[in-house]
Protein backbone atom coordinates (compact mmCIF):
# COMPACT_ATOMS: atom_id res chain seq x y z
CA UNK A 1 0.00 0.00 0.00
CA UNK A 2 1.32 3.38 -0.99
CA UNK A 3 1.68 5.78 1.85
CA UNK A 4 0.24 9.33 1.64
CA UNK A 5 2.18 12.29 2.77
CA UNK A 6 0.24 14.05 5.53
CA UNK A 7 -0.70 16.86 3.18
CA UNK A 8 -1.78 14.45 0.50
CA UNK A 9 -3.87 12.57 3.02
CA UNK A 10 -5.64 15.67 4.28
CA UNK A 11 -6.26 16.91 0.76
CA UNK A 12 -7.55 13.51 -0.32
CA UNK A 13 -9.93 13.25 2.58
CA UNK A 14 -11.18 16.80 2.13
CA UNK A 15 -11.77 16.30 -1.59
CA UNK A 16 -13.53 13.03 -0.93
CA UNK A 17 -15.71 14.66 1.74
CA UNK A 18 -16.73 17.59 -0.46
CA UNK A 19 -17.25 15.72 -3.72
CA UNK A 20 -18.07 12.09 -3.01
CA UNK A 21 -19.29 11.82 0.58
CA UNK A 22 -21.26 15.05 1.07
CA UNK A 23 -21.55 16.66 -2.37
CA UNK A 24 -24.52 18.74 -1.19
CA UNK A 25 -23.00 19.55 2.16
CA UNK A 26 -24.16 18.15 5.44
CA UNK A 27 -26.88 18.95 7.96
CA UNK A 28 -26.36 17.91 11.56
CA UNK A 29 -28.83 18.30 14.37
CA UNK A 30 -27.64 18.62 17.93
CA UNK A 31 -27.30 20.81 20.99
CA UNK A 32 -24.92 23.74 21.00
CA UNK A 33 -22.18 23.59 23.63
CA UNK A 34 -19.01 25.59 24.28
CA UNK A 35 -20.17 28.42 22.04
CA UNK A 36 -17.60 31.22 21.75
CA UNK A 37 -16.59 34.03 19.45
CA UNK A 38 -12.94 35.02 18.94
CA UNK A 39 -11.66 38.36 17.65
CA UNK A 40 -15.28 39.23 16.86
CA UNK A 41 -14.80 37.28 13.67
CA UNK A 42 -14.74 33.55 14.27
CA UNK A 43 -17.41 31.45 15.88
CA UNK A 44 -16.64 28.15 17.51
CA UNK A 45 -19.00 25.70 19.09
CA UNK A 46 -19.66 22.02 19.41
CA UNK A 47 -22.72 20.05 18.54
CA UNK A 48 -23.49 17.15 20.77
CA UNK A 49 -26.06 14.51 21.47
CA UNK A 50 -26.23 11.87 24.20
CA UNK A 51 -23.00 10.15 23.23
CA UNK A 52 -21.06 12.18 20.61
CA UNK A 53 -19.61 15.57 19.89
CA UNK A 54 -18.54 17.34 16.67
CA UNK A 55 -16.58 20.61 16.27
CA UNK A 56 -18.18 23.46 14.36
CA UNK A 57 -16.72 26.62 12.94
CA UNK A 58 -18.31 29.66 11.27
CA UNK A 59 -17.64 33.31 10.49
CA UNK A 60 -19.55 36.05 12.24
CA UNK A 61 -20.72 37.62 8.95
CA UNK A 62 -22.06 34.36 7.62
CA UNK A 63 -23.74 33.03 10.72
CA UNK A 64 -26.21 35.69 11.86
CA UNK A 65 -28.43 33.42 13.91
CA UNK A 66 -27.86 34.16 17.56
CA UNK A 67 -26.70 31.05 19.35
CA UNK A 68 -26.26 30.08 22.94
CA UNK A 69 -25.25 26.94 24.75
CA UNK A 70 -28.14 24.55 25.17
CA UNK A 71 -29.96 25.53 21.95
CA UNK A 72 -31.08 22.79 19.67
CA UNK A 73 -30.04 23.52 16.09
CA UNK A 74 -29.65 22.06 12.67
CA UNK A 75 -26.27 23.17 11.28
CA UNK A 76 -25.75 23.20 7.51
CA UNK A 77 -22.21 23.22 6.14
CA UNK A 78 -19.21 21.30 4.90
CA UNK A 79 -17.16 18.70 6.77
CA UNK A 80 -13.43 19.06 6.59
CA UNK A 81 -10.09 18.47 8.24
CA UNK A 82 -8.04 21.61 8.83
CA UNK A 83 -4.50 21.03 7.55
CA UNK A 84 -2.61 22.99 10.18
CA UNK A 85 -4.32 21.55 13.25
CA UNK A 86 -5.52 18.24 11.94
CA UNK A 87 -8.85 19.00 13.52
CA UNK A 88 -11.99 17.67 11.98
CA UNK A 89 -14.85 20.16 11.98
CA UNK A 90 -17.95 21.32 10.25
CA UNK A 91 -17.67 24.71 8.52
CA UNK A 92 -21.16 25.98 9.19
CA UNK A 93 -22.88 28.14 6.56
CA UNK A 94 -26.19 28.50 8.25
CA UNK A 95 -28.03 27.27 11.26
CA UNK A 96 -31.71 26.50 11.66
CA UNK A 97 -33.13 26.66 15.09
CA UNK A 98 -34.98 23.53 16.05
CA UNK A 99 -38.00 23.70 18.29
CA UNK A 100 -39.93 26.56 19.81
CA UNK A 101 -37.52 26.87 22.74
CA UNK A 102 -34.47 27.57 20.58
CA UNK A 103 -36.40 29.97 18.36
CA UNK A 104 -37.79 31.83 21.35
CA UNK A 105 -34.35 32.02 22.94
CA UNK A 106 -32.70 33.26 19.73
CA UNK A 107 -35.48 35.80 19.31
CA UNK A 108 -34.87 37.16 22.79
CA UNK A 109 -31.10 37.29 22.35
CA UNK A 110 -31.35 39.15 19.07
CA UNK A 111 -34.10 41.42 20.33
CA UNK A 112 -31.88 42.50 23.22
CA UNK A 113 -28.90 43.03 20.96
CA UNK A 114 -30.77 45.09 18.36
CA UNK A 115 -32.63 46.99 21.02
CA UNK A 116 -29.28 47.88 22.57
CA UNK A 117 -28.16 49.22 19.22
CA UNK A 118 -31.26 51.40 18.97
CA UNK A 119 -32.92 49.63 16.05
CA UNK A 120 -36.29 49.80 17.75
CA UNK A 121 -36.07 53.36 19.09
CA UNK A 122 -39.35 55.16 18.75
CA UNK A 123 -37.48 58.40 18.11
CA UNK A 124 -36.10 56.88 14.93
CA UNK A 125 -39.51 56.10 13.48
CA UNK A 126 -40.46 58.12 10.45
CA UNK A 127 -43.95 59.07 9.47
CA UNK A 128 -45.21 57.67 6.23
CA UNK A 129 -46.86 59.92 3.63
CA UNK A 130 -50.60 60.33 4.19
CA UNK A 131 -51.47 59.65 0.59
CA UNK A 132 -48.77 57.46 -0.95
CA UNK A 133 -49.00 57.34 -4.72
CA UNK A 134 -46.41 54.58 -5.15
CA UNK A 135 -45.96 51.62 -2.85
CA UNK A 136 -43.11 49.14 -2.95
CA UNK A 137 -44.53 45.80 -1.86
CA UNK A 138 -42.24 43.04 -0.64
CA UNK A 139 -44.30 39.88 -0.39
CA UNK A 140 -44.88 36.52 -1.93
CA UNK A 141 -47.29 36.89 -4.82
CA UNK A 142 -48.77 33.48 -4.13
CA UNK A 143 -49.47 34.19 -0.47
CA UNK A 144 -52.82 34.87 1.14
CA UNK A 145 -51.16 37.91 2.70
CA UNK A 146 -50.61 39.42 -0.74
CA UNK A 147 -54.26 38.85 -1.68
CA UNK A 148 -55.51 40.30 1.62
CA UNK A 149 -53.30 43.33 1.34
CA UNK A 150 -54.33 44.08 -2.23
CA UNK A 151 -58.02 43.57 -1.49
CA UNK A 152 -58.11 45.88 1.50
CA UNK A 153 -55.93 48.41 -0.30
CA UNK A 154 -58.41 48.53 -3.17
CA UNK A 155 -61.35 48.80 -0.76
CA UNK A 156 -59.82 51.87 0.76
CA UNK A 157 -57.98 53.70 -1.98
CA UNK A 158 -57.32 53.63 -5.71
CA UNK A 159 -54.93 54.87 -8.34
CA UNK A 160 -51.82 53.60 -6.58
CA UNK A 161 -48.80 52.32 -8.44
CA UNK A 162 -47.61 49.20 -6.71
CA UNK A 163 -44.22 47.79 -7.47
CA UNK A 164 -44.11 44.21 -6.32
CA UNK A 165 -40.95 42.41 -5.31
CA UNK A 166 -42.07 38.80 -5.32
CA UNK A 167 -39.92 37.11 -2.70
CA UNK A 168 -39.80 33.91 -0.70
CA UNK A 169 -41.12 34.55 2.80
CA UNK A 170 -39.95 31.33 4.38
CA UNK A 171 -37.23 28.80 3.83
CA UNK A 172 -33.59 29.36 3.07
CA UNK A 173 -34.17 31.87 0.27
CA UNK A 174 -36.39 34.13 2.33
CA UNK A 175 -33.70 36.18 4.05
CA UNK A 176 -31.50 36.88 1.00
CA UNK A 177 -34.50 37.64 -1.20
CA UNK A 178 -36.14 40.00 1.27
CA UNK A 179 -32.84 41.77 1.97
CA UNK A 180 -32.04 42.17 -1.71
CA UNK A 181 -35.55 43.51 -2.38
CA UNK A 182 -34.87 46.21 0.21
CA UNK A 183 -31.59 46.95 -1.52
CA UNK A 184 -33.29 47.11 -4.89
CA UNK A 185 -35.82 49.70 -3.72
CA UNK A 186 -33.25 51.69 -1.81
CA UNK A 187 -30.93 51.83 -4.79
CA UNK A 188 -33.52 54.21 -6.18
CA UNK A 189 -35.26 55.65 -3.11
CA UNK A 190 -37.46 58.05 -5.10
CA UNK A 191 -39.10 55.17 -6.95
CA UNK A 192 -41.68 54.58 -4.22
CA UNK A 193 -43.13 56.59 -1.30
CA UNK A 194 -43.32 53.74 1.16
CA UNK A 195 -42.30 50.09 1.46
CA UNK A 196 -44.60 47.39 2.77
CA UNK A 197 -43.20 44.06 3.94
CA UNK A 198 -45.93 41.55 4.61
CA UNK A 199 -46.56 37.91 5.24
CA UNK A 200 -49.36 35.87 6.73
CA UNK A 201 -49.29 34.11 10.06
CA UNK A 202 -47.34 30.98 10.81
CA UNK A 203 -45.31 29.18 13.41
CA UNK A 204 -42.25 30.81 14.84
CA UNK A 205 -40.23 28.59 12.54
CA UNK A 206 -42.18 29.85 9.52
CA UNK A 207 -41.58 33.45 10.57
CA UNK A 208 -37.84 32.95 11.11
CA UNK A 209 -36.81 35.25 8.26
CA UNK A 210 -38.72 38.12 9.88
CA UNK A 211 -36.88 37.48 13.12
CA UNK A 212 -33.49 37.47 11.46
CA UNK A 213 -30.88 40.09 12.04
CA UNK A 214 -30.46 40.62 8.28
CA UNK A 215 -34.11 41.47 7.66
CA UNK A 216 -34.41 43.57 10.83
CA UNK A 217 -31.38 45.59 9.74
CA UNK A 218 -32.67 45.91 6.18
CA UNK A 219 -35.93 47.33 7.54
CA UNK A 220 -34.14 49.64 9.91
CA UNK A 221 -31.64 50.99 7.41
CA UNK A 222 -34.10 51.54 4.56
CA UNK A 223 -34.10 55.14 3.36
CA UNK A 224 -37.72 54.66 2.37
CA UNK A 225 -40.16 54.44 5.31
CA UNK A 226 -41.29 50.88 5.98
CA UNK A 227 -44.59 49.37 7.09
CA UNK A 228 -44.30 45.79 8.31
CA UNK A 229 -47.35 43.60 8.71
CA UNK A 230 -46.47 40.03 9.51
CA UNK A 231 -48.54 37.23 10.92
CA UNK A 232 -51.64 37.33 13.05
CA UNK A 233 -52.62 39.91 15.61
CA UNK A 234 -50.46 38.47 18.36
CA UNK A 235 -47.37 37.60 16.37
CA UNK A 236 -44.47 39.89 16.90
CA UNK A 237 -41.29 39.83 14.90
CA UNK A 238 -38.08 41.78 14.99
CA UNK A 239 -38.92 43.20 11.56
CA UNK A 240 -42.09 44.63 13.17
CA UNK A 241 -40.06 46.31 15.88
CA UNK A 242 -37.64 47.83 13.39
CA UNK A 243 -40.41 49.14 11.12
CA UNK A 244 -41.50 52.76 11.01
CA UNK A 245 -45.09 51.58 11.20
CA UNK A 246 -45.87 48.26 12.80
CA UNK A 247 -49.02 46.73 11.43
CA UNK A 248 -50.55 43.71 13.13
CA UNK A 249 -51.53 41.81 9.98
CA UNK A 250 -51.33 42.15 6.17
CA UNK A 251 -54.85 43.59 6.26
CA UNK A 252 -53.83 46.09 8.90
CA UNK A 253 -50.78 47.01 6.81
CA UNK A 254 -53.16 48.09 4.02
CA UNK A 255 -55.20 50.04 6.56
CA UNK A 256 -52.13 51.78 7.89
CA UNK A 257 -50.61 52.65 4.55
CA UNK A 258 -53.57 54.33 2.83
CA UNK A 259 -56.55 56.32 4.11
CA UNK A 260 -60.13 55.19 3.61
CA UNK A 261 -61.72 56.98 0.66
CA UNK A 262 -65.02 57.18 2.58
CA UNK A 263 -63.40 59.16 5.37
CA UNK A 264 -61.64 61.41 2.92
CA UNK A 265 -64.87 61.92 1.01
CA UNK A 266 -66.63 62.86 4.25
CA UNK A 267 -63.88 65.35 4.99
CA UNK A 268 -64.17 66.88 1.52
CA UNK A 269 -67.95 67.19 1.83
CA UNK A 270 -67.58 68.66 5.28
CA UNK A 271 -64.94 71.07 3.99
CA UNK A 272 -67.24 72.42 1.30
CA UNK A 273 -70.14 72.75 3.75
CA UNK A 274 -67.91 74.38 6.34
CA UNK A 275 -66.53 76.94 3.89
CA UNK A 276 -70.03 77.67 2.64
CA UNK A 277 -71.31 78.20 6.18
CA UNK A 278 -68.34 80.42 7.03
CA UNK A 279 -68.90 82.55 3.96
CA UNK A 280 -72.61 82.86 4.72
CA UNK A 281 -71.89 83.78 8.31
CA UNK A 282 -69.31 86.33 7.19
CA UNK A 283 -71.74 87.80 4.67
CA UNK A 284 -74.66 88.04 7.07
CA UNK A 285 -72.35 89.43 9.72
CA UNK A 286 -71.21 92.04 7.25
CA UNK A 287 -74.79 92.85 6.23
CA UNK A 288 -75.76 93.17 9.85
CA UNK A 289 -72.86 95.50 10.46
CA UNK A 290 -73.76 97.64 7.45
CA UNK A 291 -77.34 97.85 8.69
CA UNK A 292 -76.35 98.86 12.16
CA UNK A 293 -73.91 101.39 10.76
CA UNK A 294 -76.60 102.86 8.53
CA UNK A 295 -79.03 103.15 11.40
CA UNK A 296 -76.36 104.76 13.53
CA UNK A 297 -75.64 107.29 10.80
CA UNK A 298 -79.36 107.94 10.44
CA UNK A 299 -79.78 108.45 14.17
CA UNK A 300 -76.87 110.80 14.22
CA UNK A 301 -78.22 112.78 11.26
CA UNK A 302 -81.66 112.96 12.81
CA UNK A 303 -80.19 114.26 16.00
CA UNK A 304 -78.35 116.99 14.07
CA UNK A 305 -81.46 117.96 12.16
CA UNK A 306 -83.46 118.19 15.36
CA UNK A 307 -80.77 120.29 16.89
CA UNK A 308 -80.77 122.56 13.87
CA UNK A 309 -84.53 122.83 13.86
CA UNK A 310 -84.49 123.75 17.47
CA UNK A 311 -81.87 126.41 16.82
CA UNK A 312 -83.87 127.73 13.95
CA UNK A 313 -87.02 127.97 16.03
CA UNK A 314 -85.13 129.67 18.79
CA UNK A 315 -83.62 132.10 16.36
CA UNK A 316 -86.98 132.84 14.74
CA UNK A 317 -88.66 133.60 18.00
CA UNK A 318 -85.78 135.77 19.15
CA UNK A 319 -85.82 137.55 15.82
CA UNK A 320 -89.57 138.11 16.08
CA UNK A 321 -89.12 139.68 19.44
CA UNK A 322 -86.32 141.86 18.17
CA UNK A 323 -88.33 142.93 15.12
CA UNK A 324 -91.42 143.84 17.11
CA UNK A 325 -89.19 145.86 19.49
CA UNK A 326 -87.84 147.73 16.50
CA UNK A 327 -91.34 148.33 15.18
CA UNK A 328 -92.44 149.70 18.56
CA UNK A 329 -89.45 152.05 18.67
CA UNK A 330 -90.16 153.28 15.15
CA UNK A 331 -93.81 153.96 16.05
CA UNK A 332 -92.74 155.82 19.19
CA UNK A 333 -90.38 157.95 17.15
CA UNK A 334 -93.06 158.72 14.63
CA UNK A 335 -95.52 159.85 17.28
CA UNK A 336 -92.86 161.92 19.00
CA UNK A 337 -92.18 163.61 15.69
CA UNK A 338 -95.85 164.35 15.26
CA UNK A 339 -96.03 165.73 18.77
CA UNK A 340 -92.94 167.79 18.18
CA UNK A 341 -94.46 169.16 15.06
CA UNK A 342 -97.61 170.35 16.93
CA UNK A 343 -95.41 171.91 19.58
CA UNK A 344 -93.35 173.98 17.14
CA UNK A 345 -93.51 177.68 18.32
CA UNK A 346 -93.41 178.83 14.73
CA UNK A 347 -96.71 177.13 13.88
CA UNK A 348 -98.92 180.04 15.32
CA UNK A 349 -96.91 182.52 13.19
CA UNK A 350 -98.43 180.80 10.13
CA UNK A 351 -101.79 182.03 11.27
CA UNK A 352 -100.68 185.67 11.64
CA UNK A 353 -99.51 185.66 15.21
CA UNK A 354 -96.25 187.40 16.04
CA UNK A 355 -93.58 186.81 18.67
CA UNK A 356 -92.45 189.88 20.54
CA UNK A 357 -88.81 189.91 21.64
CA UNK A 358 -87.74 192.36 24.39
CA UNK A 359 -84.22 192.92 25.61
CA UNK A 360 -84.57 189.90 27.89
CA UNK A 361 -86.09 187.50 25.41
CA UNK A 362 -89.66 186.77 24.45
CA UNK A 363 -91.96 189.35 26.00
CA UNK A 364 -94.85 187.98 27.98
CA UNK A 365 -95.67 190.77 30.44
CA UNK A 366 -96.23 194.41 29.42
CA UNK A 367 -95.14 195.53 32.81
CA UNK A 368 -91.64 194.28 32.17
CA UNK A 369 -90.92 197.03 29.68
CA UNK A 370 -91.06 200.79 29.83
CA UNK A 371 -92.25 203.18 27.17
CA UNK A 372 -89.52 203.88 24.72
CA UNK A 373 -88.07 200.35 24.85
CA UNK A 374 -87.10 198.97 21.49
CA UNK A 375 -88.82 195.68 20.62
CA UNK A 376 -88.58 193.20 17.79
CA UNK A 377 -91.60 191.47 16.16
CA UNK A 378 -91.08 188.05 14.63
CA UNK A 379 -93.62 187.31 11.86
CA UNK A 380 -94.20 184.23 9.77
CA UNK A 381 -91.77 185.74 7.33
CA UNK A 382 -89.30 188.37 8.45
CA UNK A 383 -88.87 190.60 11.51
CA UNK A 384 -89.86 194.15 12.33
CA UNK A 385 -88.35 196.71 14.75
CA UNK A 386 -90.87 198.51 17.02
CA UNK A 387 -90.91 201.00 19.86
CA UNK A 388 -93.12 201.04 22.94
CA UNK A 389 -95.11 204.30 22.80
CA UNK A 390 -97.59 203.78 25.55
CA UNK A 391 -98.17 201.46 28.42
CA UNK A 392 -101.82 200.42 29.07
CA UNK A 393 -102.68 198.67 32.27
Amino acid at each position, binding site marked *: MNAFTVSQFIEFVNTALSTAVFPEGVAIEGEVVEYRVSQQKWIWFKLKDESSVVECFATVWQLRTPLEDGMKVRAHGMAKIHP*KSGKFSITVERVELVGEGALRRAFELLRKKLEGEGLFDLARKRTIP*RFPARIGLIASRESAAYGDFMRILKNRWGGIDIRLADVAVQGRDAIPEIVSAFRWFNANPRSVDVLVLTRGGGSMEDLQAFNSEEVARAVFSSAIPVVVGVGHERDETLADYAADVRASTPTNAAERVVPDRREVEAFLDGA*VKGMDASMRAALSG*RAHRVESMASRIEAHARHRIDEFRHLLRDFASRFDRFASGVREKVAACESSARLLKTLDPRRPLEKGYALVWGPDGILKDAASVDAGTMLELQLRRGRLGAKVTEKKT
Partner: protein
Amino acid sequence: MPKPKAESKEKGLDFGAAYKELENIIEWFEQEDVDLEEGLKKFERGLQLAKGCKERLKEVENRVTEIKAKFGALEDDAAEQEPLL
Protein backbone atom coordinates in the same frame (compact mmCIF):
# COMPACT_ATOMS: atom_id res chain seq x y z
CA MET B 1 -55.08 77.88 -13.72
CA PRO B 2 -55.70 74.38 -15.08
CA LYS B 3 -58.58 72.44 -13.64
CA PRO B 4 -57.61 69.79 -11.10
CA LYS B 5 -59.29 67.21 -13.27
CA ALA B 6 -56.85 67.97 -16.03
CA GLU B 7 -54.04 67.85 -13.56
CA SER B 8 -55.05 64.37 -12.53
CA LYS B 9 -55.27 63.08 -16.08
CA GLU B 10 -51.92 64.44 -17.11
CA LYS B 11 -49.42 64.17 -14.32
CA GLY B 12 -51.60 63.09 -11.45
CA LEU B 13 -53.01 65.59 -9.01
CA ASP B 14 -50.70 65.82 -6.03
CA PHE B 15 -53.41 64.60 -3.74
CA GLY B 16 -51.41 65.10 -0.56
CA ALA B 17 -50.56 68.70 -1.44
CA ALA B 18 -54.14 69.47 -2.49
CA TYR B 19 -55.52 67.93 0.68
CA LYS B 20 -53.07 69.84 2.85
CA GLU B 21 -53.92 73.10 1.12
CA LEU B 22 -57.60 72.43 1.65
CA GLU B 23 -57.00 71.71 5.33
CA ASN B 24 -55.19 75.04 5.64
CA ILE B 25 -58.10 76.82 3.99
CA ILE B 26 -60.56 75.17 6.40
CA GLU B 27 -58.38 76.22 9.30
CA TRP B 28 -58.32 79.76 7.93
CA PHE B 29 -62.09 79.81 7.79
CA GLU B 30 -62.28 78.72 11.39
CA GLN B 31 -60.63 81.92 12.58
CA GLU B 32 -62.72 84.59 14.30
CA ASP B 33 -63.13 87.26 11.68
CA VAL B 34 -63.31 86.20 8.06
CA ASP B 35 -62.30 88.86 5.59
CA LEU B 36 -64.89 88.77 2.82
CA GLU B 37 -62.69 89.44 -0.16
CA GLU B 38 -59.96 87.05 0.92
CA GLY B 39 -62.62 84.56 1.98
CA LEU B 40 -64.17 84.57 -1.44
CA LYS B 41 -60.82 83.78 -3.05
CA LYS B 42 -60.13 80.99 -0.59
CA PHE B 43 -63.64 79.68 -0.96
CA GLU B 44 -63.21 79.39 -4.71
CA ARG B 45 -59.81 77.72 -4.34
CA GLY B 46 -61.20 75.37 -1.71
CA LEU B 47 -64.07 74.32 -3.95
CA GLN B 48 -61.62 73.69 -6.77
CA LEU B 49 -59.38 71.57 -4.54
CA ALA B 50 -62.28 69.60 -3.09
CA LYS B 51 -63.55 68.93 -6.59
CA GLY B 52 -60.12 67.78 -7.77
CA CYS B 53 -59.74 65.51 -4.77
CA LYS B 54 -63.19 64.00 -5.20
CA GLU B 55 -62.41 63.38 -8.82
CA ARG B 56 -59.29 61.54 -7.75
CA LEU B 57 -61.33 59.39 -5.33
CA LYS B 58 -63.16 57.91 -8.30
CA GLU B 59 -60.04 55.96 -9.19
CA VAL B 60 -60.74 52.50 -7.83
CA GLU B 61 -58.07 50.33 -9.38
CA ASN B 62 -54.48 49.98 -8.25
CA ARG B 63 -51.81 49.07 -10.76
CA VAL B 64 -49.28 46.36 -9.95
CA THR B 65 -45.96 46.08 -11.71
CA GLU B 66 -43.84 43.12 -10.84
CA ILE B 67 -40.14 43.83 -10.58
CA LYS B 68 -38.22 41.57 -12.92
CA ALA B 69 -34.96 41.67 -11.00
CA LYS B 70 -33.75 38.41 -9.49
CA PHE B 71 -33.71 38.73 -5.76
CA GLY B 72 -31.49 36.72 -3.52
CA ALA B 73 -28.02 37.25 -4.96
CA LEU B 74 -26.28 39.12 -2.20
CA GLU B 75 -23.20 40.15 -4.12
CA ASP B 76 -21.18 41.58 -1.24
CA ASP B 77 -21.63 38.64 1.13
CA ALA B 78 -19.55 36.34 -1.03
CA ALA B 79 -15.96 37.34 -0.47
CA GLU B 80 -15.43 36.12 3.05
CA GLN B 81 -12.57 33.76 3.81
CA GLU B 82 -11.91 31.49 6.72
CA PRO B 83 -9.10 31.93 9.23
CA LEU B 84 -6.02 29.87 9.49
CA LEU B 85 -6.42 27.22 12.15
